[in-house]
């Protein structure tokens, strides 16, 4: 086990739910923390009676939602200034992605909660695209309850063998992330072709 995860687990055992909330929050805003492995371990700790699985789920979901809202809120408020400063408007792919998030916001936000690395990116895009708060919050909260529940349950079931499941859980997360990117690109392609056909018909 890498020493970084060991340190996180030590803090988790000492400061319990406070440490859990802080780590999940930092992970949600994009800090490279092994949150999924930590949730697996937490599930195992809950199985041993050291944590309550439902309180853990509540804290993990709240930390995730708070982190996502931080990224979304900052980019919604200052996103355009940052984009103009970095001249990202000139990148057509960036514009198309932003349009994609905006056009089917609820489903895209919900889906990307399951692909760990996709979540912070989508939060930023949702903020920039100006997705309404009341669309962002329910989709984000729903995904953020289901996603940690999966890891906690696997850890709970695996018990002392939780570490053996860590790699497989990471691979499943990566598969979901790639599949959601693919799904978004296929939808972008469909819209692109539809608009090209409409242009041709107009000419």
């Amino acid at each position, binding site marked *: *086990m890498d020493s970084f995860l*060991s*340190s996180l*687990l*030590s803090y988790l*055992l*000492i400061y319990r739910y406070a440490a859990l909330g802080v780590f999940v929050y930092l992970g949600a805003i994009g800090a490279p923390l092994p949150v999924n492995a930590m949730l697996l371990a937490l599930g195992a*700790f809950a*199985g*041993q*009676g*050291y944590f309550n699985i439902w309180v853990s789920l509540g804290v993990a979901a709240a930390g995730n939602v708070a982190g996502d809202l931080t990224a979304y809120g900052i980019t*919604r408020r200052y996103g355009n200034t940052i984009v103009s400063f970095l001249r990202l408007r000139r*990148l*057509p*792919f960036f*514009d*198309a992605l932003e*349009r994609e998030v*905006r*056009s089917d916001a609820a489903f895209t936000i919900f889906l990307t909660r399951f692909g760990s690395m996709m979540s912070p990116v989508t939060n930023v895009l949702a903020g920039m*695209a*100006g*997705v*309404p708060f009341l669309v962002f919050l329910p989709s984000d909260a729903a995904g953020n309850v289901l996603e940690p529940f999966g890891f906690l349950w696997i850890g709970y*079931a*695996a*018990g*002392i*063998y939780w570490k*053996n*499941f860590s*790699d*497989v859980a990471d*691979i*499943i997360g*990566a*598969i979901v992330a*790639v*599949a959601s*990117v*693919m799904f978004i*690109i*296929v939808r*972008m*392609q469909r819209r*692109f*072709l*539809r*608009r*090209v056909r*409409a*242009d041709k018909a107009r000419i």
Partner: protein
Amino acid sequence: MIPEEGFVRPTESTPSIGKEDPGFSPRSFKIAIAILVAVLVLLFALLIHGYAALRKEHLISVRELSLSMFVARHGPLTASETGMLRPWMTFDYVNRIFGLPPDFLKTAFSIEDPSYPKLTLSGYAAERGFDEKEFLAAVQAAVAHKLSPSE
């Protein structure tokens, strides 16, 4: 209806895509999808490899649904499982998972640190200048001795 501030709904009458998205072509989409499919195939291969490793260790088997084998067992660990002890664990956690009295390790190692039991094994070893591996082995031996049937 007035749209919410900063939220402009796209319409089918958006100006020509050719002018709006000069970098796009149907070919670029196909290339992106092909790359993603290749990555997915690779990830599925890794998943199968991971599953095979878990099956080899008799931890999971879809055919036999043997997840239940370890789902059912959540009681305290036994003397034969002291190998599960790790330096990052706290004394409190060790006492709990082996079902030991809260002061067992404190007494066994004459620990006077006021942070006990919220103290990691590695932290205590470092604080007292002990070798981490030797201290871990000593804790394993003490726990195994306490849990052995003759005790």
